[in-house]
């Protein structure tokens, strides 16, 4: 896809192409427990992104030779619907989806008490129904919710955000137009919020060390804001309770 020739002002007077500030997230909605057959599930809308996650497990990991006798496995499967992108996507998973599945599964592994479930697998299925940049971080955020909804014991939730650069500015949560900027840098960033441990980090583009410092700080803040929304979504399911306690 040819990049547009006309110069875009990716950030002008503190406003981005879609009117957001440099540290502003797109609108995000999260819902937990949306699939009756799954052990845990979540749905997220993040900007135009619409992603569904279902969790099955822990269950016996088969074939047997794949089992780990000391801890469970996280099997993360990230897939995109053919109609989730502008140019119809071939239903067969491509290398991008396979890579995302791998790094996302590794991100979640660190947060789950896998030693409690030797020989088992926890399957996380992600289906992207609509996309506009940042699907992997939105999916990971929802996946962590789905794991909590399934009752899988965890050390912490995993929250994720995209951070990067466009038009010379360090910005939070790039959308598709910004990803297409000539100097675009896209950094998917995921942490376990209590300890600030980074469990997913990738980068695409050219960045100076100072720019990275700025981006890292922005990424941390962004993740923590996402974390607050995750807690809300989990509590909302059982929300009535808080009011009842207060009556006493």
């Amino acid at each position: 896809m040819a990049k547009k020739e006309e110069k875009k002002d990716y950030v002008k007077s503190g406003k981005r192409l879609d009117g957001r500030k440099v540290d502003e997230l797109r609108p995000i909605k999260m819902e937990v427990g949306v699939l009756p057959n799954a052990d845990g599930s979540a749905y997220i809308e993040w900007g135009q992104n619409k992603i569904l996650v279902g969790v099955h497990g822990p269950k016996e990991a088969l074939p047997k030779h794949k089992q780990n006798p000391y801890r469970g496995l996280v099997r993360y499967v990230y897939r995109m619907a053919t109609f989730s992108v502008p140019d119809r996507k071939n239903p067969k998973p491509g290398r991008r989806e396979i890579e995302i599945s791998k790094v996302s599964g590794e991100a979640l592994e660190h947060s789950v008490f896998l030693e409690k479930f030797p020989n088992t697998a926890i399957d996380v299925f992600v289906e992207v129904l609509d996309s506009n940049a940042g699907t992997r971080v939105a999916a990971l955020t929802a996946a962590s919710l789905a794991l909590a909804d399934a009752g899988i014991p965890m050390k912490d939730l995993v929250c994720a955000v995209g951070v990067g650069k466009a038009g010379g500015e360090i910005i939070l949560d790039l959308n598709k137009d910004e990803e297409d900027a000539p100097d675009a840098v896209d950094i998917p960033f995921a942490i376990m919020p209590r300890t600030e441990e980074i469990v997913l980090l990738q980068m695409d583009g050219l960045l100076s060390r100072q720019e990275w410092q700025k981006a890292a700080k922005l990424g941390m803040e962004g993740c923590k804001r996402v974390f607050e929304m995750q807690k809300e979504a989990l509590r909302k399911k059982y929300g009535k309770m808080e009011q009842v306690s207060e009556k006493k």
Partner: protein
Amino acid sequence: MDEEQGEAGLQNSEQAVEHKKKQIVVPGELITDERKKLGQHVFIENGKIYSDALGITYPDAGVAYVVPLVGIYLPQSDDLVVGIVERETVKGYMVGINSIYPSYISADKCRDMLSKGGIVSAKVNSVNEINEAELFDVRVFYGGEILSVSPAKVPRIIGKNGSMLAVLKNGTGCNVVVGRNGWAWVKGGDVAKLIDAIKLIEAESHLDNLTVKVEELLKAKKVE
């Protein structure tokens, strides 16, 4: 059977959920930085105690623990479970108990022969490091059916000393045995009303006045 049900209701320091101050916690959330005895579903990090599950904690309790609102069943010794016989083995049977693996019953622990598809109740004898269990004290059920409920809600369905279960039995006329594993054997009575009552308990297990609400539901006239 009722006594066992009552005990099952009090398994693993799950105390009465009616009176104390309670709080919903998410995985990784701080329970307390005081020194307390550790109960279920919590872990220690740098001297502080955190929840590992989405559940309810009682900040005033002497033990730091979390009662999960969701989750699969993992067998623990002395649990009463309801199972379905899957197959015979050389010297015993494999019985599905709604967990990761089926459990093993040695033939010498059963008075009668078990048949495939049969419903039984049993107690968990031992559990190994990969969460596989062996059962004993097997009783066979004849007739009836199995209901599936959320394992996390079983203590609430049984209630303190079996109190909620008694309400359910009296209000529906059903013969009911609820396994800690989330499967319940039911025979006779108004099964449809029982299912409605259990759904109510599952949905509002963490709210107050649940017993009253359940009693009201059971009293309501049957709609033909």
